[in-house]
């Protein structure tokens, strides 16, 4: 299997002088193409920071991150943007859709930035994705007239439209009720099964239990990690128990 993300001894510090705070302390890890990874850990342990570092949204203080063969630190701002647009997809805790354009426009926006010529292909693909995520028919809806779950689905469609290699999700189900959360997780699991690498930050053992690899963070370090077989709809409770056991052990 191919390595899609590699982190070598990354350190991330915020602030200077007296206010300096080391948030990531010498983390090294490798993510392989097609993996389904969850990051867990107490609040403030550096989960979001790690994900920002791996996706190039933020620069690391020391160490090196390689994404799909490219060293992120060497890329220019525009090249990073290209990378984000073409090879990464992001799903955030709060649905991050633009308010003054409708649902469909939001979904096709990144793709339309430079592939306007293929407008109809893009729209067709967007509609397929909407169908797959269960929001077909809402194309013309105003963003302010949608439920949290619907918005999150639209966000997923946007992230998927460019066939990214990696999907990053920072607590994508954190703001949803359990029913919606379950549905969103099913969609994400599906995405992974279609071959896309997925990396999620989560507090929820139920969510983590559906992934294959869980990194447990504490104080800016990966305290431990566990692997699980690919989830096929069975043994969910056992998987959850395993996750919670480690969580307890680490005092999360």
């Amino acid at each position, binding site marked *: 299997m191919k390595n899609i993300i590699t982190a070598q001894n990354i350190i991330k510090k915020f602030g200077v002088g007296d206010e300096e705070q080391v948030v990531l302390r010498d983390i090294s890890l490798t993510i392989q193409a097609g993996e389904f990874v969850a990051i867990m850990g107490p609040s403030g342990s550096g989960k*979001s*920071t790690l994900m*920002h570092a791996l996706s190039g*949204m*933020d620069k690391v203080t020391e160490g090196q991150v390689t994404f799909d063969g490219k060293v992120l630190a060497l890329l220019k*701002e*525009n090249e990073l*943007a*290209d*990378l*984000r*647009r*073409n090879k990464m*997809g*992001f799903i*955030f805790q*709060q649905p*991050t859709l*633009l*308010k*003054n*354009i*409708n649902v*469909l*426009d939001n979904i*096709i*926006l*990144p793709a*339309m*930035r430079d592939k*306007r010529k293929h*407008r109809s292909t893009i*729209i067709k693909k967007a509609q397929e994705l909407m169908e797959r995520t269960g929001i077909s028919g809402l*194309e*013309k809806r105003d963003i*302010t007239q949608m439920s949290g779950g619907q918005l999150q689905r639209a966000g997923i469609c*946007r*992230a998927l439209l460019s066939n990214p290699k990696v999907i990053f999700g*920072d607590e994508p189900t954190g703001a949803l009720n359990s029913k919606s959360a379950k549905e969103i997780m099913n969609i994400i699991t599906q995405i992974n099964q279609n071959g896309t690498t997925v990396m999620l930050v989560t507090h929820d053992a139920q969510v983590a239990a559906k992934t294959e690899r869980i990194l447990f963070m504490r104080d800016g370090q990966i305290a431990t990690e566990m692997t699980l077989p690919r989830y096929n709809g069975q043994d969910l409770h056992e998987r959850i128990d395993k996750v919670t056991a480690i969580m307890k052990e680490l005092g999360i």
Partner: protein
Amino acid sequence: MFSRIILNDMLKSKLTTLITTIFIAIAAMLVALSAILMVNLSGAIDTLMREAKTPHFMQMHAGEIDQTRLEAFASSHDYVEDFQINEFLNIEGAKITINGTSLAHSVQDNGVSKQGQTFDYLLDINGKRIDVHDGEIYLPVSYMKEEVAIGDQVIIQNKAFTVQGFLRDSQMNSLLASSKRFLVSDQDYNALQSVGNVEYLIEFRLQQLEQLSTLENDYITAGLEANGPTITYPLFKTLNAISDGLMIALILLVSVLIVVISLLCIRFTLLAKMEEDYREIGVLKAIGLRVADIKKIYIAKYSVITLVGASIGVVLAYMCKDLLLENIKLYMGESENTALAIGLGMVGVGVLCIIIMGYIYLVLGRFKKIAVTEAIQFGTAQEKSISTKHFTLAANKWLPTNVFLGLKDVMTRKRLYFTMLIVLVITTFIMIVPQNLYHTISSKDFTTYMGIGNSDMRIDIQQTAEIKTKANQMVKALANDDDVQAYNVLATKTYYVQQDQQKKRIKVELGDHTLFPVTYAQGNAPKETNEIALSVMNADELNKKVGDKITLIVDDEAKPFVVSGIYSDITNGGKTAKATFTTSSEDMMWYVINVTFKANPALNAKVKEYADQFSYAKVSHIDEYIQQSYGPTIASIEKAAFIAIVVALLIAMLIVFLFIKMLTAKDRYTIAVMKSFGFTNADITKQYMSRALFVAIISVIIGTIAANTLGESIVGAVIGTFGATAFTFTIQPLSAYVLSPLMLICAVLVATIIGASYAGRIKISQYMKE
């Protein structure tokens, strides 16, 4: 908690606070300045006219004079307090040399005069009546600006004088008054008598100014000497006030615009702030704080800003005032009511502060409308916009995505961009109106609004013996000149109008008026011998419209005329008429001959040829004539137009910069989101540029239309007060429609790029957590 909020707010918006303060300071400064100037100007004029004992009624007269009859008239009317006949010796410019330079090219009627005996004094720079000795000469104060110094030499037809000082002439200080009096001793005056033509100044002082119209009527009824203009005390006052008055009016106008801009500045700062704090305000309301409490925070903040701004403005005004008062002090002298000036300035600034605070109260009224639930749920105000529903990215074929996003944003948040629109409309207006005015008044056509026909060369023959013979000589010369394409001869003579048992005098220009026509507000030039055209002022005074009948006494016979047209005129006090009939009378007041040449020969040479040949006539190149009569006015308007463009561009840049900066701060979350899915800083900048460009283009269109309609009427109204109506702008399309909009748009784009640079510093990771 309030102090925390207000402190945070001040710190977060340092720049906005600073700029708002500056705008208020400038507005306060201009308001205070115009009040100070206004009081000083009127005070100085009053002092000057009181000290100089300006005549209440003055009749100029060229020709024979019956002194005893005039004296008898004066003593037989009780209301006449004082009476005198002064003289003005009009001398050709060529015969006067100051420091070796002759005044041959001066279009003013220069001449010498004696000091008034009991009134109409010429005053020195200290406001004292001048006591002039033999061999000394005092020059009009305007020469002080032209590097003429005390001790310099003036030669009038071989007779040398030493400049002993400068004089203030309460009658003829103004550039708009064409005669300029130089003061010499009585003895020197008598010695010069043969050099020029005497014009009598028949002057009256009244017990009370209210008796002026009685005197005017009695004077006409008595049929006394009247071959020349009549000028009254109020007109002297207007002439003295006009140029500085215009400056004050301009300052006031600019200050009004600046006040509007600072109000807009406050408005969008507040609105943006409110939207930014929407959730917070909603929460404050939810936890039971009253709207009044929240208002207090902002009121406190803006009270501080307004007070600081106004104080700075007053200090600035105090520092600048001497610079602007210089001209008034030079021409008119000191004013006596300095305290009043400063007091009125303070009152003006006080009113300004009240307006600003009132406006803030008004804008803050919106706090009431913040719905608690909406605020907490969405964190921003919901702006509904159904109209743009169909403008979607999915349906957009042509626009680049960034441009689309920019336009879409403007359309959905109209209210926000409205402020920017208004500011840019105003700046377009400020840019275009003064330059249109400048192009209009500097264009050759404009002379036709002033009552001057559009020709190449103008010849004035006035106040000379055997005037008709001389005019005929001139005509003969023109008729024999092969280079001459066309010319007309206009002879001016005073006639009586018979109206309601009353006689009124009007000056009628006789000749062919179709050749070098002036601009007619209504109707046409007179063609038939029974037609007459009236200047706007005369038409108003005689209450006549086109087609009305009017009776003139021509060669002692009452003759009916029909009013054929009404035209603009600012020459000769604006009270003139034009007709084509011929008269047997020999005594014309003056002749004006307009000439055009074939295919423009060396015009200057032609002018010189005629000037040399006919020394009694004043021959001028029409451009030169305009230059000398209105040159200083045109030059100062050109300067004003230039300054207006620079100021407008600066204001536009400043406001747009502020606006975009605030917008990026407000939209930082959206920007971070867009960056997270791959939009670059350049993309974001392009989006902001499209927004600004879109607003700027609409503003330029509205502003240009407003400038050419509203601006034209405002300027027309001002010009109208001088007697010129039917005013339309002469527009230089390249400058008004291409260069100015282009400059404004460039300024806006530059400001946008700088303002949007903040977007580049927005880190995705930072805002994704919000």
